[in-house]
């Protein structure tokens, strides 16, 4: 399953290059660094701050058909948890493959308990469904 991670800020591609080359923490970066100096893409996703021209910390997952499936937005002073991002991403790929299953909040990875064919029979019985094999 191919996934492209693309980082976006309102800096230009030239600044991305200069930053990646000068900051040793970024020496092994493999992801694409995209430039949105007009803020148009950032506005589309609702992360553009018109007051200072800087993007909020927003993460968005888009499936291969181009549908937006997940979003998370943090204010400037709180960082994102990559483990939770990966959990949500894996869960989205899993349910895209297994369309009769849903991933509960504690689902972490392939093999963890899911709810299969949630429907009328499961109403009020989620606890039992999560206990069962």
């Amino acid at each position: 399953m191919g996934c492209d991670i693309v980082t976006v800020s309102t800096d230009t591609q030239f600044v991305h290059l200069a930053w990646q080359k000068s900051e040793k923490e970024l020496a092994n970066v493999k992801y694409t660094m995209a430039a949105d100096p007009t803020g148009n893409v950032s506005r589309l996703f609702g992360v553009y701050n018109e007051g200072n021209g800087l993007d909020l910390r927003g993460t968005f997952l888009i499936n291969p058909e181009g549908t937006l499936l997940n979003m998370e937005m943090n204010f400037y002073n709180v960082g994102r948890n990559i483990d939770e991002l990966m959990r949500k991403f894996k869960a989205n790929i899993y349910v895209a493959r297994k369309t009769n299953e849903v991933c509960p909040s504690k689902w972490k990875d392939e093999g963890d308990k899911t709810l299969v064919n949630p429907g009328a029979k499961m109403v009020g019985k989620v606890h039992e469904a999560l206990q069962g094999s």
Partner: protein
Amino acid sequence: MAETMTAPLKLGQKVPDFEMVTYEPTKGDFGKFSMKDQIANKRWTILFFYPADFTFV
């Protein structure tokens, strides 16, 4: 297109096509990202927005 969108996207909506110029650290060169290419190549996409280069992400 992005220029004419007034309300931000909501979950479950189709993302309209857009393009961005990119820097590709693996190639040391500039490139292009487009939603149209991602769909044509059947790729999942994670967009990771942050305030600014040379800060403390």
